[in-house]
């Protein structure tokens, strides 16, 4: 007699979940993985700036202005003798705050609009689509620029204005997702059980739509880094003595012929962050939605 043993361990443990599978695919992509590590490092730097930075971002050492790298200032100083390394570290804080905050705000504004347009269709969708068209017509950066020119600037306002001007992409994406989801059988089944519409929209459908939206968010970050650096470069971004990569670049360009470091430090930071977020975003997209791999090179 042979006894038959039945494996009774919970099936949930046996089958890897969606996110776990995605993580495995992401890990296999070396460029994305390295970029992901860089992203994490940048974020840690931003969060832990006061602990890491050798000096405050506003501490001046006028005797050593525009100095090259030295034992006291590893990456040199700017025209007011402020430590470039410290400013770059604190700059990560401001730049990341804006670069992540603005797309997040855009998502918060855009996703509900897109959901409603996609779900209800007809008149709601018509209005939303016309709204999309109007906003597509006006360059978004110009809108932000106009708002800054009108209302002044601070880190908070920068996030607000850049966020307002970036809702469109989120709305479009959410709309497309919900149009494809709304006619699925399980939506009908949920309605047949008497589930209220808001629960269907948020609890039932959002988890299916959230992947592409997160990817879009990550891909918006490098664009926002660029945009906010651009504003700072134009003098419309954050103001002295606050540090921001774009602003550091703006400060540095005036002394380009005297001290290359003042330009190089922020430029490398911007380039590194932009590339890291871009590759990381691409990697995430390929990991979450492998069918999009063909268009991976943009």
């Amino acid at each position, binding site marked *: 007699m042979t006894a038959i043993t039945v494996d*009774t*361990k*919970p*099936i*949930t443990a046996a*089958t890897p979940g*969606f996110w776990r599978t995605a993580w495995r695919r992401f890990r296999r992509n070396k460029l994305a993985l390295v970029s992901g590590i860089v992203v994490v490092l940048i974020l840690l730097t931003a969060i832990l700036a006061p602990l890491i930075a050798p000096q405050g971002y506003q501490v001046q050492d006028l005797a050593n202005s525009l100095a090259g790298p030295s034992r006291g200032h590893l990456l040199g100083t700017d025209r007011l003798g402020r430590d470039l390394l410290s400013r770059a570290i604190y700059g990560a804080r401001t730049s990341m705050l804006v670069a992540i905050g603005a797309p997040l705000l855009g998502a918060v504004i855009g996703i509900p609009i897109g959901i409603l347009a996609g779900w209800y269709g007809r008149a709601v969708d018509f209005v939303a689509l016309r709204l999309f068209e109007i906003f597509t017509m006006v360059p978004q950066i110009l809108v932000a620029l106009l708002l800054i020119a009108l209302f002044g600037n601070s880190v908070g306002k920068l996030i607000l204005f850049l966020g307002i001007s970036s809702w469109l992409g989120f709305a479009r994406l959410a709309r497309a997702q919900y149009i494809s989801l709304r006619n*699925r*059988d*399980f939506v*009908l*089944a*949920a*309605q*047949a*059980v*008497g*589930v*209220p519409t808001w*629960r269907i929209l948020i*609890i*039932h459908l959002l*988890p*299916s739509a959230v992947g592409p939206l997160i990817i879009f968010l990550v891909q918006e970050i490098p664009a926002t880094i660029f945009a906010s650096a651009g504003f700072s470069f134009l003098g419309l971004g954050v103001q002295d003595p606050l540090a921001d990569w774009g602003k550091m670049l703006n400060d540095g360009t005036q002394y380009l012929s005297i001290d290359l470091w003042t330009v190089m430090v922020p430029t490398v930071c911007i380039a590194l962050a932009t590339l890291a977020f871009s590759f990381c975003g691409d990697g995430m997209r390929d990991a979450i939605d492998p069918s999009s791999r063909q268009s991976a090179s943009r």
Partner: protein
Amino acid sequence: MLEIDDLRVSFPLERGMLYAVRGLDLTVRAGERLGVVGESGSGKSVSAAAIARMVPAPGRISSGHIRFDGSDVIGLPERDLRRLRGGQIGMIPQSPQTSMNPVITIEAHFQEALALHLGLSKAQSSDRTIELLRSVGIPDPGSRMRGYQHQLSGGMRQRVMIALAIACEPRLLIADEPTTALDVTIQAQILELFDRLVAESDLASILITHNLGIVAGHCDRVVVMYAGKVMETATVAELFARPSHPYTLGLLRCVPRLTAARTRTFATIPGSPPRVTEDAPGCPFAPRCDRVTAQCRTETPELLRIGARADGSGFASGEHSVACWHPVEFGEVA
């Protein structure tokens, strides 16, 4: 318990209208098992959806009354409608493969319904879910319910959907071709389960199918639909013994029988059901009927009760109605 009176459902097309249901009259009494049969496109699924006001857009209930326990479903506000769906009327979908949300656990499906209709807490609903899943024959329900739909086979999924449909103790269960998406071997099991649950909790049920064989075994009364209209209605025994409408007769001839001679060719009804884009008078079955007369093409036959047979024998339940100018007489065909 359920009364449908002159229900009409139509779908606007790019050009004109599609009349899916044209004046449906139907009643279901408490505890009764009603079968609705008809070919694809006969309006049976749309009628079922209309009962809970779930006609898919852009379709619309254009007129008629639906009364459930005396309350008018068509005039019901959204809030009460949600209480009706799931709470009073349970629905079993056609394709269990796509009717569960792939990103939500099985338990969460139940928890949501139980909280909405019975106000159960998380812990209470867990217990109830295990109990429900066990009653539909899911092995090891405690760990299964923490999984997702893709971890279940088609038959298992339909069992789960049935459990979900009866979770909140509805009084009417509507099953829209619950076995079409399943393996033949599973179909009988699912129908047995359906029967058992209906009997146990004294539910009224509407079973929609195109298979008269299923009706024979699992229903008390039958409604035969064609082109959005009721052609004939009778108790199951009466319908099989004494089909009155030529269409019903045709359908019965199409059912393959083990007892039939091997040499007999498989019977079919020539042609296919119409897409009704104009509500013109005349019998909708006329173009395919072998008993057609000029009257059939110009005048719409009404659904009329067939009286008790003259000799008072047989199944004259007084509930046998047919919409035909030239009904098949008893004994006319073997």
